[in-house]
């Protein structure tokens, strides 16, 4: 358990850092896929197996391919061309990220005693998840279905706009 957590934590942190700092855009997307796998592993250590499977399907499968396609469609095939960041921007980014991390970490540190008491763990099967989804969360489920349809139609309309104008 401890080893699995440490392993997947290192995988996801390395993946995230590489995805945000590498020069080549294609390498960034590959590092992000590593990060998504790490998060899926962390979900497994939390006994949320279904979420882990969905994580692999949606992020590694769909979002990863979508990002790779977006890079290809914007002609960054080699991935090395494109805008470069200055050192000033990097230092500002590290400052912002560090400030947010220390704010969050301070909040967790202050509530450390309260958090340490939470030792009981809950488990739930996919069957229970399905039952909750069909009973309690049935309205949000329908709303999300409408949202997904709207997003798909919107994405097609936005991406096709210029093409329609030319015709």
């Amino acid at each position, binding site marked *: *358990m*401890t080893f699995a*957590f440490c392993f997947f934590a290192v995988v*996801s*942190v390395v993946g995230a850092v590489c*995805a*945000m700092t590498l020069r080549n*855009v294609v390498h*960034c*997307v590959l590092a992000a896929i590593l*990060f*998504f796998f790490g*998060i899926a592993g*962390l979900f497994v*250590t*939390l006994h*949320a197996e279904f*979420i882990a499977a969905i994580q692999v399907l*949606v992020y590694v499968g*769909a*979002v990863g391919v*979508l*990002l790779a*396609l977006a890079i290809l*469609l*914007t002609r960054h095939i080699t991935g090395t061309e*494109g*805008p470069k*960041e200055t050192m000033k*921007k990097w230092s*500002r*980014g590290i400052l*912002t*990220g560090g400030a947010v*991390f220390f704010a*969050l*970490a301070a909040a*967790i540190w202050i509530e450390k005693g309260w*958090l*340490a008491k939470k*030792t*009981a*763990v*809950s*488990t*739930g099967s996919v069957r*229970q*998840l399905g*039952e909750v*989804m069909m*009973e309690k969360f049935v309205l*949000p489920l329908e709303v*999300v279905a409408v*949202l*997904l349809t709207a*997003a798909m139609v919107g*994405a097609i309309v*936005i991406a096709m*706009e*210029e093409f329609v104008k030319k015709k």
Partner: protein
Amino acid sequence: MESREGDSCPDKSRQECCVYERIGEREGELKMIGLEHYLILSALLFAIGLLGVVTRRNAVIVLLGVEIMFNAANLSLVGFWRFRPDALAMTGQMFTLFSITIAAAEAAVGLALVIAIYRHYKSVDVEEMTTLKG
């Protein structure tokens, strides 16, 4: 009336829908990874994602940073679900599922926007996108 699983769960602690394991009672035997470890990791990943969003100039990588922040938030949601058995049954996992759905929709629309902007400006540099009117 047949009691429905899920609805009446938080009132009665011993029901089929919430199986509790008590590891606190065996304190000292094993050093477990607790909720705070997951929260710290989640905060770190969120900060890394934010760093990328404010620093990188490629619009695709900015969207990637937003996805990393989404994942960090999902991790803390599942962590809270795991370590709070008195909470509503499966709520944390349901929140995460909806969050993943919305992140997927956001990625699709965001990347369509990036492609539309690229067609217009012939660039994906977010610092060049300074006009509201094309």
